[in-house]
């Protein structure tokens, strides 16, 4: 029966090509716009560490002297708090995070010096975030301890400097120090660059920078204290200007800490540990707010920072409003189309077709339009994503259609068309055969 209905649907679609084209086009642009924005949204709002994110936590304390006791802890910590918490080694894994930009030269490579984005962290960073290495290895806790002059470089930088060859053992000059390359990353593109996320709530929704590519150079946090001096990216400072001469002792927030806690008991234990630490620091007179601590897991932290840019979310809302308009349009046109065939439907009903059969036949026709619209929508989605890739935004290179979204495109199109076909099909199935036959 289905194939017969399909045949009827195709015949009917061929009969009025302009109307069919109009309906298919309306669905196609609606689907194209929705799926383009939805794909971008899907890529940006996903879990950057699937399966692991629930074990990754972001502890925070409040070292500020701000008079408002209800204020949130700063997004990152001061040097001393972060290093104290890190060196206690109470979590399964822990990594300090601070970033900087340093001048980079590669001896023996004929390229002008460039400014490289540098992530300074500790050895647990690589296993904790499953960072893939192409050549060599990451550094060890001993390197953290000994302030070894070592670095891991990104695959992009390795391509640029060394043409993609194994560069382990070579030396690069960072600012005024030589560091030895001990590892080269395989291509690694977390979305967002979650370990660096902070300050999202102050960005007024302009958070595209969270989706930048990972840094080009990774080096031990301890080594970087010697190499970079005070040249770190600072989140904020408070207190007296005089105290800011040395970043390590300054009232400035610039170091983040990520910890991995594998079960609920450890999470509770670590919360207690952070709270105890803050209380102890208050007793020592270093903290004003001893009870202002917080520890979110990875996804909570991303949510808290509203990582998905508000423009992207706005575009999704707009696109779906647009799809709704396209659907209204399709409902109207389908209604026109079915009712114009009232005579034909009357004959079919008179010859014994049940209401259900007429209804099913109309829905098959609507579904066929949906399928065609889905095809057009898929092409328009590809076009839309191509346009997104050409935008000067940090997440541009991420915009690709994956298998799930490809299927979703057709599912959404057919669903939309069936929904649009529901009322017209119902109306068509109610056609009274007698009345129609009389006017034939």
């Amino acid at each position, binding site marked *: 029966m289905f194939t017969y209905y399909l045949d009827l649907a195709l015949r009917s679609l061929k009969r009025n090509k302009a109307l069919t084209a109009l309906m298919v086009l309306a669905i196609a642009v609606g689907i194209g716009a929705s799926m383009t924005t939805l794909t971008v949204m899907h890529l940006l709002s996903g879990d950057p560490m699937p399966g692991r994110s629930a074990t990754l936590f972001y502890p925070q304390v409040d070292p500020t002297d701000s*008079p408002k006791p209800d204020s949130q802890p700063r997004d990152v910590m001061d040097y001393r708090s972060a290093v104290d918490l890190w060196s206690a080694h109470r979590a399964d894994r822990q990594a300090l995070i601070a970033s900087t930009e340093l001048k980079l030269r590669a001896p023996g490579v004929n390229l002008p010096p460039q400014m490289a984005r540098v992530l300074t962290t500790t050895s647990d960073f690589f296993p904790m975030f499953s960072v893939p290495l192409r050549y060599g290895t990451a550094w060890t806790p001993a390197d953290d301890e000994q302030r070894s002059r070592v670095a891991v470089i990104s695959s992009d930088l390795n391509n640029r400097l060394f043409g993609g060859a194994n560069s382990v053992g070579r030396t690069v000059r960072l600012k005024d120090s030589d560091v030895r390359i001990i590892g080269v990353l395989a291509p690694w593109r977390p979305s967002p660059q979650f370990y660096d996320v902070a300050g999202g709530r102050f960005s007024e929704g*302009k958070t595209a920078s969270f989706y930048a590519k990972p840094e080009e150079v990774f080096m031990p946090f301890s080594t970087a204290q010697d190499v970079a001096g005070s040249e770190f990216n600072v989140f904020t400072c408070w207190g007296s*200007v005089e105290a800011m*001469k040395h970043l390590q002792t300054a009232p400035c927030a610039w170091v983040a800490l990520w910890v991995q806690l594998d079960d609920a008991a450890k999470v509770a234990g670590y919360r207690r540990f952070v709270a105890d630490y803050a209380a102890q620091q208050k007793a020592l007179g270093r903290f004003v707010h001893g009870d202002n601590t917080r520890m979110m897991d990875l996804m909570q932290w991303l949510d808290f920072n509203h990582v998905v840019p508000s*423009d992207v979310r*706005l575009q999704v809302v707009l696109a779906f409003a647009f799809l709704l308009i396209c659907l209204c349009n399709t409902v109207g046109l389908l209604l*026109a189309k079915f009712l114009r065939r009232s005579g034909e439907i009357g004959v079919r009903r008179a010859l014994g077709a049940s209401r259900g059969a007429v209804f099913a036949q109309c829905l098959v026709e609507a579904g066929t339009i949906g399928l065609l619209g889905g095809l057009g929508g898929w092409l328009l989605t590809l076009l839309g994503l191509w346009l997104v890739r050409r*935008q*000067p935004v940090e997440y541009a290179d991420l915009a690709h259609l994956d298998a799930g979204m490809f299927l979703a495109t057709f599912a959404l199109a057919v669903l939309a068309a069936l929904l649009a076909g529901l009322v017209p099909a119902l109306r068509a199935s109610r056609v009274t055969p007698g009345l129609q036959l009389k006017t034939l």
Partner: protein
Amino acid sequence: MEIGPILASLRKHRIPALLIVLEIALACAVLCNAVFMIGARAGEIRLSDAIDEQGLSVVTLTGADPERASSEIPRNLDALRRIPGVQAVAVLNTMPLSGNGWNVNFTTRPDMKPTDKGSINSNIYLMSEGADRALGLRLKQGRMFGSEDYASSTMGATFAPETHVAIVSERLAGRLWPGQSALGRKMYMDKYWYQVVGVVADVLRPTRAGAGLPGIYDTVFFPMQPTDVLNYYVLRSAPADRDRVARQAEDTLARLDPGAVAEGKTFVDMRGDFFSGASSMVWMLVLVCVVMLAVTAFGIVGLTSFWVAQRRRQIGIRRAVGARRGHILSYFRTENFLLSAAGVALGMVLAFGINLYLMQHYEVDRMPWYYLPGGAIALWLLGQAAVYGPAHRAAMVPPVEATRSG
């Protein structure tokens, strides 16, 4: 025109009528909000800036040896000045729209802490001698810095300039001392104090961070002798020369200091980069509006055509009993007018609701009321334009149609 028969006929075609109303309502709601957002973003992109943006080129020089800054900066400025077409050069710690903010909280009383409420977050520009000419700053009150101001101002170990003179933007002057003259007043940062010697027309900040769009003009200028924090070289030339000047300036600095990283750009490009996100959003919104209006118009054409085809016989009868073509035309136009009126009435409510929702969940402001009637008129005109074709075809139905059956 009698609207009684039209309403009676619409009552018999409730679903298609409702669909047109709904479509127009949705389109009106989306159009109002989209146009409002386009306006807001276009306003941002066109934010005024009281410097000679068209003639400026900027070269950043990073990674130079800080120890030699006091000798290398004058040498670099000299070399840049010799580039043909360059009218003035100077060096600053950052530039408007560069993305590199120097945000500091200032207070108007010595006993206030920078973290207190009432302190104002501003960007500080540290500038070398001649930067007022190089940037094209427009002095509104007081004086520019003198040579002795530049010579005596140094950078302490922190980010606070060791000087006692400052020039503020008009906007910041108004915010720090509302309704009073800023000249001669002191502003404080912790234990540092600065006396305002001049007020300049509003210059943009390097970033929005700090105070967002309302604080985008909160800027303070300080004189500074050649120091390592000054690494934004700015060159002023005729607009026609700027691309060449930017290129040559980059080459010059790269040659003079091969160990450092020099990057040249025209200011116009810097502005373009800064607002690239906003402008791509504007284009996307424009595209959505155009396609949406087209879809809506085609929908109206499609449905009205169907309507006309369905009523050929009735139209024929009306023509046969004396109705003129104009009557038929105005029948369909009035019908569309009524549907549009219902649609935009619903649409305006919807637009207002969407705006409230967006205000709550996204960084969107309240939409001024005049966007609502604006959107309504646009949709009403669109409806009239879309209905013209089918209505014209209806008017062409000959009276003889009345005698044909079916």
